[in-house]
């Protein structure tokens, strides 16, 4: 039993040490915030559906300026559950009048998708 206890102890220690190194850290992302924005100003984007995916599925927006994304009435099912992980956006847009609003504060290309990842696209922040 002593040997078994030793094995178990060593196993736990190994898992803890490996876990400490492998579960730490977060992904590095370039972040560039620029220009001041006038109050009430936003970039409007309306996305539709084509070939069972978002259309257009590449959207270009400006950094630092609020963005409102609408899904028109052609977008149905789980694709109405709209997410952009990198900006913490996740909302079910029940009607074409509903929208998600966020301010892209970092430049680059980011994936947007439905909550199940079935419909995808790219948000380019310039």
């Amino acid at each position, binding site marked *: 039993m002593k040997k078994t206890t030793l094995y178990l102890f060593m196993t736990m220690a*190994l898992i803890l040490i490996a876990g400490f*190194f*492998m579960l730490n850290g977060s*992904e590095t992302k370039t972040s560039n915030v620029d220009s001041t924005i006038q109050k009430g100003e936003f970039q409007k984007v309306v996305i539709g559906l084509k070939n069972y995916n978002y259309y257009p599925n590449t959207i270009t927006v400006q950094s630092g300026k609020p963005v409102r994304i609408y899904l028109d009435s052609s977008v149905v099912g789980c694709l109405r559950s709209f997410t952009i992980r990198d900006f913490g956006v996740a909302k079910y847009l029940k009607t074409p009048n509903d929208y998600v609003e966020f301010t892209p504060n970092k430049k680059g290309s980011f994936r947007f998708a439905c909550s199940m*990842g079935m419909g995808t696209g790219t948000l380019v922040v310039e």
Partner: protein
Amino acid sequence: MSFSHFIKSMGNGEVESELPKTILVSLLSSFGILIILYFISLKNITDFIPKYGFFLFFSILTYAFILPSVRHVRAYKEFQCMSGMMIGMTIGMISGFLPGFFIGGTNGMFVGSLFGMSLGILFGIWNGKCCGIMGTLEGIMAGFMGGLMGAMTSLMMFNDNLKFAGIVVFVVSSAILLGLNYMIYTETRGGERKHKDDEFFVIFWSVLLTIITILVMVFGPRSALFQ
């Protein structure tokens, strides 16, 4: 034949005493090869640990928890149909589901499913054959289903606490594997050991599975959502 007898048997030199040692040897081998590969080449990959660390860590733990069950089954070799089917199903399902889940979390559903199915079916056949064709078929079906389900679950949770779900799935699967070991223990009382694998068996499979997982995870194809 209670569970406490099973726990005690892990310390008194029976086949079951090899289980904790197998976990330790598997972890040492897998983390050993990972450290070597990291300093040879993986450190040059941007964000290697933040991107793949979690999924790789749990993949390695998965192999370390599956291999003792495989070794346990191989020690007795032959089982009755009911037990053999349970063995084929459990090992096939878990060795398909968990790798499928973790690869699915980095590469998407297609690669995750293929990887999970391949591994699940391989381990399902290998262990299910202990009772003949019934266990083998059960292993194939479970591996096939587990691989698909693991990757699918991972993809569906991509935007919803994927990592926490991974921990929960791993804990539940580990408890099931412990239950399987207990079942093998109760089913084989009075039976003789028929086969003995040395530590090289564990080292070989741990290193092989870890290397394949790293290659698929880092260099394998990935779906649009994961690019």
